């Protein structure tokens, strides 16, 4: 009986150590490096209001297109820098079965529209509001800018965390078109709130 208790105590200790190692590696490090749990899973099916106020749109249409979902905010410096690249990507892939959707993250509609008025819009991009952060929560957005890639079957196959550029965005889309899963790429910091 004593031996059994000793064995049980030893097993519990080993389990505790193992658990602490797992938890430490999962939560104790840089949260930027945690792989998005959404990769490999179907994209969240959410309807969001358009930033221009003209009704609402499905985030991912399920029409066989590759969908690039970018979360941005008017208060995010990196978002300003990458915006022209997103517009260029939307235009470059306009007739190639790729849809770009930009979702305002923790931003008010007026500020987000002012940001787009200043930096430009692509006629082929959907600009959406995310009241209550439903889409951000569903995608597990940690901060902005973050960009998700949904394949023609509606599966999230890629994510760029941090400021992307046209070459990286295009390279990721090219990989998806070749049937590859680009996975997660951390290229820079993200801001989780206007205060940083």
């Amino acid at each position: 009986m004593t031996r059994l208790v000793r064995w049980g105590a030893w097993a519990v200790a080993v389990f505790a150590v193992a658990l602490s190692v797992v938890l430490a590696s999962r939560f104790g490090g840089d949260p930027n490096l945690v792989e998005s749990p959404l990769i490999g899973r179907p994209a969240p099916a959410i309807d969001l209001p358009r930033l221009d106020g003209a009704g609402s749109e499905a985030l991912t249409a399920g029409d066989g297109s590759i969908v690039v979902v970018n979360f941005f905010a008017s208060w995010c410096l990196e978002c300003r820098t990458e915006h022209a690249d997103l517009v260029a990507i939307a235009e470059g892939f306009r007739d190639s079965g790729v849809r770009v959707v930009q979702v305002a993250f923790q931003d008010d509609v007026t500020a987000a529209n002012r940001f787009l008025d200043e930096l430009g819009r692509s006629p082929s991009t959907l600009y959406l509001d995310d009241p209550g952060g439903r889409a951000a929560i569903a995608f597990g957005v940690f901060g902005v800018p973050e960009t998700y890639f949904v394949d023609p079957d509606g599966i999230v196959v890629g994510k760029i965390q941090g400021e992307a550029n046209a070459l990286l965005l295009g390279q990721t889309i090219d990989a998806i078109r070749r049937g590859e899963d680009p996975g997660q790429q951390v290229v820079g910091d993200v801001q989780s709130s206007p205060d940083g």
Partner: protein
Amino acid sequence: MSTPLEQAEQARLDLEELQAQVASGEIDAETGARLRATYQREIELAEARSERPPAAGQSRSRTRVAAGALVLLTAIALTAVVLSQTLEPDPDRALQGIAATGTFEPGDYSDETLEAVVAAYSDDPTVAGQLPYMRFALAERYFERNDFQRAFTHYEAILQRDPAPDLFASTMTRIAWITFIGNGEVDLSLQVIDRAIEAMPTSTEALYVKGQILWCGAGDAGSAAVLFELVLTSDQLDPVTRAQVERDLTAAAAGEPCT
């Protein structure tokens, strides 16, 4: 040498082929309309001279287009030499401002990606040295597909940004070719190719293309032969290109019309 009636028949076949090319989008409507007018004029001319033999060395559109396909392939082989020299790993020319990966290899990216990059970075001074080469690589893809309209847009953009002499010469060579094969403008294409040679006197592709225009467009086989001879002095030609230029030299030196 075919008879005027055979020439008229050939021009009719060209016309049919052209209609199919326009319908499939291979040739844009504007170019198609221009070529259609040319072929119809040739039919009328050939029928009018059906009692007379055609003048020696006179070029016809069919011959020119066939030769065009040939010169195009050869010119691309020559371009490959130019590009591989230009885009080989060179830290100063790597697109480090855009891609953290360093060296940029255009073949790794789709047309759409290259279009997006040149659009987003066309005014970025940090990549001003590299971007024209990326744009040229993109234009070459359109040029190889005979999509001259798209290619021209990028060639024009390259010229607007004061390119290096090698790039200027290659770009002007393409424009000369488009002017010749797309628009049938022999004199103008010769003026353009002369600008290319002026900027880069050793450009084998420019010399070769000028030879082709002189031979197939102006019917000047003798001057073409001189240029082909000059091209063959280059040690940069791959064996296939060299063999092609040698065949052209033999034919032009013998005073044969281009085929």
